[in-house]
């Protein structure tokens, strides 16, 4: 227990940041601040992916979530002039429900950790997953290769985009 490796220290620091920022993201009263705390949570997740050797997913996390989705959030907040403060009173019944849900989640996670292990134990350490392998898995058609889901997701995205354009141009 005494000799913490550098990886452990980084992990616990990142985990602490993720936990604190997740809580702040839902408790803060200002909507842009919540988006910023969400950004830090996403950074932390990216760091954890990178620590697992999955740097590709870490970079995708930065690019898609931090650089894309949070930017989209902030853009829409800027454009919609939403009220800056949103202090809601939480009723007693709701508070009980929140606590029950949190406790259930904690029990499930602890059960998983106790019965399985941390993911870090199951994979080779200090090895970066080569991007070439990820690419082959993404567009191969063998077992454990994912060309079909990949294509279906792209069709779904095209459909979403066409739908969005249709809604935006309805006045014509």
């Amino acid at each position: 227990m005494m000799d913490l490796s550098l990886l452990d220290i980084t992990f616990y620091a990142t985990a602490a940041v993720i936990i604190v920022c997740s809580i702040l993201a839902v408790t803060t009263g200002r909507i842009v601040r919540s988006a910023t705390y969400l950004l830090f949570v996403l950074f932390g997740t990216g760091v954890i992916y990178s620590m697992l050797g999955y740097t590709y997913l870490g970079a995708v996390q930065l690019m898609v979530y931090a650089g894309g989705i949070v930017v989209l959030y902030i853009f829409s907040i800027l454009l919609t002039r939403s009220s800056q403060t949103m202090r809601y009173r939480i009723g007693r019944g709701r508070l009980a429900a929140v606590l029950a849900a949190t406790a259930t989640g904690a029990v499930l996670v602890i059960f998983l950790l106790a019965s399985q292990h941390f993911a870090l134990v199951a994979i080779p350490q200090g090895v970066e997953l080569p991007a070439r392998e990820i690419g082959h898995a993404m567009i191969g058609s063998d077992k454990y290769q994912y060309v079909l889901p990949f294509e279906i997701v792209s069709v779904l995205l095209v459909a979403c985009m066409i739908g969005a354009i249709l809604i935006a141009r309805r006045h014509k």
Partner: protein
Amino acid sequence: MNYYDINSLNQSIHGTLSSLMPEGLAITLEGIAVGLLIIVLYALLAIVLIYMERRVCAAFQCRIGPNRVGGRGGLLQVPADVLKILTKEIISLRHADRFLYNLAPFLVILASIFSFACLPWNQGAEILRMDIGIFFVLAASSIGVLGILLAGWSSNSKYTVIGAVRSGAMIISYELSIGLTVLTMVLLSGTMDIQEIVMEQEHLWNIFRGHIPALLAFCVYLIAGNAEANRGPFDLAEAEQELTAGYHTEYSGMHFGFFYLAEYLNLFITAGIASTLFLGGWMPFHIPGLDGLNAVMDWIPGVVWFVGKTFAVVFLLMWIRWTFPRLRIDQVLTLEWKYLMPLSLVIVLLMTLCVIFGLVL
């Protein structure tokens, strides 16, 4: 070929430190040393770039530029400015979101330093090396726009919000072109690791290997890179006449200094990535067949090549900045979505065909 490889130096430093103390401590110390090195280099380069910008700008406007402070050439002008800005008061605003207001410059500088750390200075002198290097640079640099948006919003002023929205729309759009041109060069190199991209150009630089598509990609990259760095003719986010200074109007002292620093270093990073992808990074100029020339070129250290090429591209970008008039926001977006983006898709296709049919050198 490998006269200036500093990998062995790195290993001997690590070996010495590890023999003196536990390895974890040694790695921590090395990390701190490298981190300090990056920050110092970052600040020094900013001084050099600002001085260069002032001289280049003056030359294009038929002026002399800084020429009083520090004797001939005004070499001490920029260091004096740095000292002045360090002593300035950081003003805090009323009715502004103090936390986000203070956070925004750091987000901008963070994105910039992350991408800065990926540049290939020399053989063995890369700081962050990953299998996905160039993709990480794209991902890290996409954080900067968040800092700009937050700065604009949290200053609680309409000029800054307009500046931030303009700049956000522009950067998000031009990221597409940058991504596609980088993809073109990744197709040519067959790898995303920055050092391997440089090693691939051992015989001939990419811009010659990929001939027509590479040349087109280089032009598109330079245009889009200029827009990413928020520099003229795409500096409408900080259009002085309409918006005073755009998203950083309300910042003072070193907070403003951070935005300024990041702008210049983003210019350097854009140029550095351009010289890595197209002009061979630290790789000396080689022509297959001319062994005598290649041997002579190898005597010049890689870091000289890298810095030289990067400053050449920086000069090209400054030339563009001080030559063209500023575009309007609709012109900027039209240029990207109607011309550059389709063009970069065609370039990707062209490069794929060239690589498949073996038409690259």
